[in-house]
């Protein structure tokens, strides 16, 4: 009985912790579908992030939870990029166009619609912001992503 009480207390602590809801979402990333992002790029000279995901993939959920929820990431994406989100199950044609099958993966296009960089995997907020800077500053023209991360 005493043990059950201890576990009851632990469970209550877990539930109470639910009141701690984490950072505010600040409206979230303004995701577009790929055709809408292409159309928007005709009017706005911005680089584009094409984000390939599957709704079930837990690493895609990690990106949503850890990175796309962060105000600084949201602000940076919404201000400096056009963000296209492609569900590879529903939009397989876009996946085939970019030869993308890995999730989560990222293809960056410059303001003219030309692919300039692609990568994959889960990025925490700071590393993802660095990735956005790598593309927006056009550092890819002179450095590899690894060199850029190391500050060379």
């Amino acid at each position, binding site marked *: 009985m005493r*043990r059950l009480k201890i*576990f009851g207390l*632990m*469970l209550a602590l*877990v539930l109470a*912790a*639910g009141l*701690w*809801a*984490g*950072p505010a979402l600040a409206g979230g990333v303004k995701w577009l579908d790929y055709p809408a992002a292409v159309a928007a790029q005709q009017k706005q000279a911005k680089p584009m992030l094409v984000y390939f995901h*599957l*709704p*079930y*993939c*837990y*690493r*895609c*959920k990690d990106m*949503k*939870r*850890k990175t796309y*929820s*962060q105000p600084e990431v949201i602000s940076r994406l919404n201000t400096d990029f056009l963000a296209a989100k492609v569900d*590879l*199950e529903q939009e*397989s044609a876009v*996946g085939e166009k970019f030869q993308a*099958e*890995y*999730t*989560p993966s990222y293809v960056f296009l410059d303001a003219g619609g030309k692919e300039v960089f692609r990568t994959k*995997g*889960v*990025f*925490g907020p*700071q*590393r993802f912001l660095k990735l956005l800077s790598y593309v927006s500053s056009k550092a890819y023209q002179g450095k590899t992503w690894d060199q850029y991360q190391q500050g060379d």
Partner: protein
Amino acid sequence: MKKVLGALLAMALVMAAPGLALATNGMNMIGTGAVSSGMGGADVAVPAGCTAIAGNPAQLATTCNRVVSVGGALLNPQMDVTMPGQSGVDNEFQLFPLPFAGYAQRIGTSRWSWGVGIFAQGGMGVDFQNVKNFSGADDSLYSQVAFMRLAPTVAYNVTNHLTLGVTAFAGYATIDYDFFPNGVQGQNVTGLSSFTIAGRFGANYQINDQWSVGATYTSESSLDFDDGEMRFNFGPGLGKVTYRDAKMDNFTWPRQVEFGVSFRPTTKWLLAFDVSWVNWAAAIQTVTVTASNPSTPVPAGYENLSVPFIMDWKDQWVFALGAQYEINDMWTVRGGYNYGQNPVPDNTLNPLFPAIVEHHLTAGFTFTYGDWDFDFALEHAFSNSQTNTGAPSPTNPFAGTEVSHYQNTAHFMVSWRF
């Protein structure tokens, strides 16, 4: 097909040489893989890679691409047996390797995932040398129960929130034991083995970005051990006689029901809590070893031997609580606590099968480098002591015997996503 599966599992058992035996939650490990074990085994509602094959198969549906994992554990049990009127005897040093290997992938970009893995489900064993037998002579108590499973698994995303999975377990188990082989009526049994099948169904429902709940049901695995050999000691005169056909009946791996909940209070924290019910009461009652076909003539009435082990284990409740914190992109740390009620009744305690530890504390971490994960966890099962309080009888030879048991386990795993 049965022979091929048996050969694969037997090969895995050989890989686990010199032996494979443990006792954590009864005879089950508290978790499979360093991630689950690092969280005290609380994994039913937690996304997993290949280890979902040995946990909640529905979690395999969270696979993103392809992942292969290889690892295992090294378990060091520490036991002590004290028979009435004798001093305590420590277990011989043992270090058991418990392998795991798995592969999982999403089928294209569909809602289906599949995987296959091979892993140590559990077991138990002791090695007491120089313990006095019932005649007061130096003798030994030794046992080794090992159970490996090969587990093809499929999982399906019914909706963005609900996932289901099913695993078919092909199991292979072995048992050897020495029961005071130097004393009159002592036995040395080797080579008992059994092939068995079972299944596990799992479900997971992600309520929202913070909460998930999951559940599993595992059917029992009936084990009919045969192909063994028994050396039975008739004492002075006839000595030890080998019986070429030894079998063991009524030894079953139990069915199990698990329920789990996971919760993310912040983006970096993950908390998980599992409750499991293990039906040992239906699985381990009176285990009977029979032997026939003696290699030399034996006294009338001894052509066929029957040795009952009255065990009458109790059902077991297991509670697991785990926490995980992501320090940064590369480092994740974990801690956990696991409590599994001792399923062994006081009046049938047998030092050959001392699955009595209850409290476990665990800690671990993952180091992520690109597409690679390196997982590590340590598990400590705190010492538990138990005394056989039953009345002395031919079927309860260990009345008054006390057994103490604790153990340390190191888990490690390497995973590659591609």
